[in-house]
């Protein structure tokens, strides 16, 4: 499937049909998820209504990790096989992943204040997610730091691959260290440990976030492809435009030095 979509023209054709479908489905699933999270789900017997923050926080955390893995895999494919769309995909996904990580950190902080009595603690889970946020920002800064997009893409791909080491640290931080953050209660061996009435809105919101990611990825990739095509047209137009008279040699040398 990925190989089949490797052709940019084919990707544009398929995504043209998929974007509206994905957009409307994401809107419907997120609306249902919000209604379930805010209205239908019961308050927790200990956390009260702050448990509703979990329906945004947990799916955002899952997306933060999954999108980073996507960026790393796409970067590896771009580095090794020079896949024509892989670099565009990695570049387009990174800001979406950074937004999910920011939402995860901010909502976690808003939950931590009433439940832990602190907006922030330098706990292993929180700190490793903050490192993930900085990795995203570093990747975005690096890929945009070069005039030649392919050089930026290669440098960013190396950073993305090195940063993968942080993913197992985030996942297992609650097992390896004595943290304030609770251990996994959904994705664990032996099945979820939360009530079905709370699991349902969590899963719906996670599905909504996944659809939103797919939508934003397609839109951003199409934008990047359009912008590259426009740049090629501009360069082409510059190359075929009537040549301007050459400046005097002395002036030209002076300009080159300054």
């Amino acid at each position, binding site marked *: 499937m990925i190989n089949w979509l490797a052709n940019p023209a084919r990707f544009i054709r398929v995504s043209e049909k998929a974007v509206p479908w994905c957009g409307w489905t994401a809107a419907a699933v997120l609306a249902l998820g*919000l209604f379930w999270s*805010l*209205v239908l789900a019961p*308050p927790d017997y200990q956390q*009260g*209504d*702050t448990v*509703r*923050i979990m329906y*945004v*926080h947990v799916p*955002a955390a899952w997306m933060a990790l999954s999108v980073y893995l996507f960026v790393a895999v796409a970067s590896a494919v771009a580095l090794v096989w020079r896949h024509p769309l892989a670099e565009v995909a990695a570049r387009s996904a990174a*800001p*979406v992943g950074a*937004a*999910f990580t*920011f*939402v995860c950190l*901010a*909502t976690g902080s*808003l*939950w931590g*204040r*009433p439940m832990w009595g602190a907006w922030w603690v330098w706990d292993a889970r929180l700190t490793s997610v903050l490192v993930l946020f900085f990795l995203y920002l570093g990747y975005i800064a690096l890929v945009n730091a070069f005039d030649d997009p392919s050089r930026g893409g290669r440098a960013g791909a190396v950073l993305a691959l090195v940063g993968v080491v942080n993913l197992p640290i985030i996942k297992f931080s609650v097992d390896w260290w004595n943290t304030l953050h609770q251990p996994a209660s959904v994705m664990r061996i032996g099945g979820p440990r939360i009530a079905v009435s709370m699991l349902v809105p969590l899963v719906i919101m996670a599905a909504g976030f996944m659809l*939103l990611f797919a*939508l*934003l990825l397609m*839109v*951003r990739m*199409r*934008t990047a492809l*359009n*912008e590259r*095509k*426009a740049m090629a*047209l*501009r360069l*082409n*137009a510059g190359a*075929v435009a009537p040549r301007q008279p050459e400046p005097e040699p002395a002036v030209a040398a002076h300009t080159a030095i300054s």
Partner: protein
Amino acid sequence: MSDPGAFLAMGGYAGFVWPAYGIAFAALGGLAAYSWRRYRASVLELERLQQQRGRRR
């Protein structure tokens, strides 16, 4: 949701629950709106350049 006041109060945690949803909406909705605007701008720019190229030929 029979009592809108109680719903908005979120059991006394309104100051934490609503900002959490607000931040999520602002961050993800803002990125979506920005991405869509940039996409529309790229389509218009590409069309303009293609028309310009057509005229030159």
